[in-house]
């Protein structure tokens, strides 16, 4: 059983990671980023797909590897993803109307940098070696993306802890979400470290 106190402590560590990720995004875009970090929550995995609007999103998925295992998912509504590409590639506003190879690779890099910064903050706090996989980019409905992620998570159990950050590049109307999941053995390892 995971106590409220344990969840809170893990939330604090994750929050440091989220803040580090958002400041990296701020550097990349040259803009202020507003963030909202949700308290970690234990949910039945099916809940992750609920309340998903059926619009198209760009998602970047990375596996967490090394001493901890899990998944990190970046979700950007399609319009936000295109605006973000405009900013990153220094294009005029609304120039990107379809994702080509270059914009996809720019968005994968965003995933890489956000996750890399999140993980290095965790790595420092927990004194663990953490790695990330090559980013995987998929454009589809948010529902079907969450559906596939839930199936992956289900292999480790039917409940999971959701760590979540929402962010907004304020002047540019770019909105996105970042989800972090750790498998149960990794949660145990994190708790052991915290308790020491």
């Amino acid at each position: 059983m995971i106590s409220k106190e344990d969840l809170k402590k893990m939330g604090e560590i994750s929050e440091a990671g989220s803040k580090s990720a958002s400041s990296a995004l701020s550097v990349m875009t040259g803009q202020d980023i507003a963030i909202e970090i949700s308290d970690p929550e234990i949910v039945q995995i099916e809940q992750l797909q609920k309340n998903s609007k059926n619009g198209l999103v760009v998602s970047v998925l990375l596996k967490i590897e090394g001493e901890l295992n899990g998944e990190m998912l970046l979700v950007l509504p399609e319009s936000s993803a295109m605006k973000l590409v405009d900013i990153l590639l220094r294009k005029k506003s609304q120039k990107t109307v379809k994702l080509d190879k270059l914009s996809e690779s720019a968005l994968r890099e965003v995933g890489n940098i956000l996750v890399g910064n999140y993980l290095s903050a965790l790595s420092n706090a927990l004194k663990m070696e953490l790695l990330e996989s090559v980013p995987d980019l998929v454009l589809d409905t948010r529902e079907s993306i969450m559906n596939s992620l839930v199936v992956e998570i289900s292999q480790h159990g039917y409940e999971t802890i959701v760590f979540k950050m929402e962010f907004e590049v304020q002047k540019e109307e770019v909105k996105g979400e970042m989800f972090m999941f750790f498998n149960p053995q990794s949660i145990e390892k994190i708790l052991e470290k915290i308790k020491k």
Partner: protein
Amino acid sequence: MSSQIYEVGMSEYKIAENPVILVSSGVGSCLIIALYDRTRKIGAMAHAMLPQAADLQAAKETPARFVEQIIPILIEEMEDVGCKKENIIAKLAGGANMFATLGIYSREIGVKNIQKAHEMLEHLNIEIDAENTGGNNGRHVEFNLANGVLSIISKI
């Protein structure tokens, strides 16, 4: 006659009679199993997540999570409302492999879901009338019990 629409979420199943449309949106690597009795216009649809349950308790608690566990239940419940097994046909949709990264790690759960459904339906002597499975895209699925048509919409 306008049909009522019932949502079938992940790990859920529903049995209904015309005029009803059973809907599952956002089907990724999950598998939609749709069974239909043309003579009675009764259909059943399940939105299963994994090929089989790891233990009995999981199977009992949420059978619709698992392809292996839910198929016999769908048939049984259709029989309970008067369908004859020989009139039941099956349609399958889903089982995509959206993320290449996950494909490697989870050894393509989508594919395993499809294989398990084939195995079970063959074992139970239910004909697979139509199938739209695999690939890399998510699917929105609608099952119209007026005619047994399973419509699939991919947004990509």
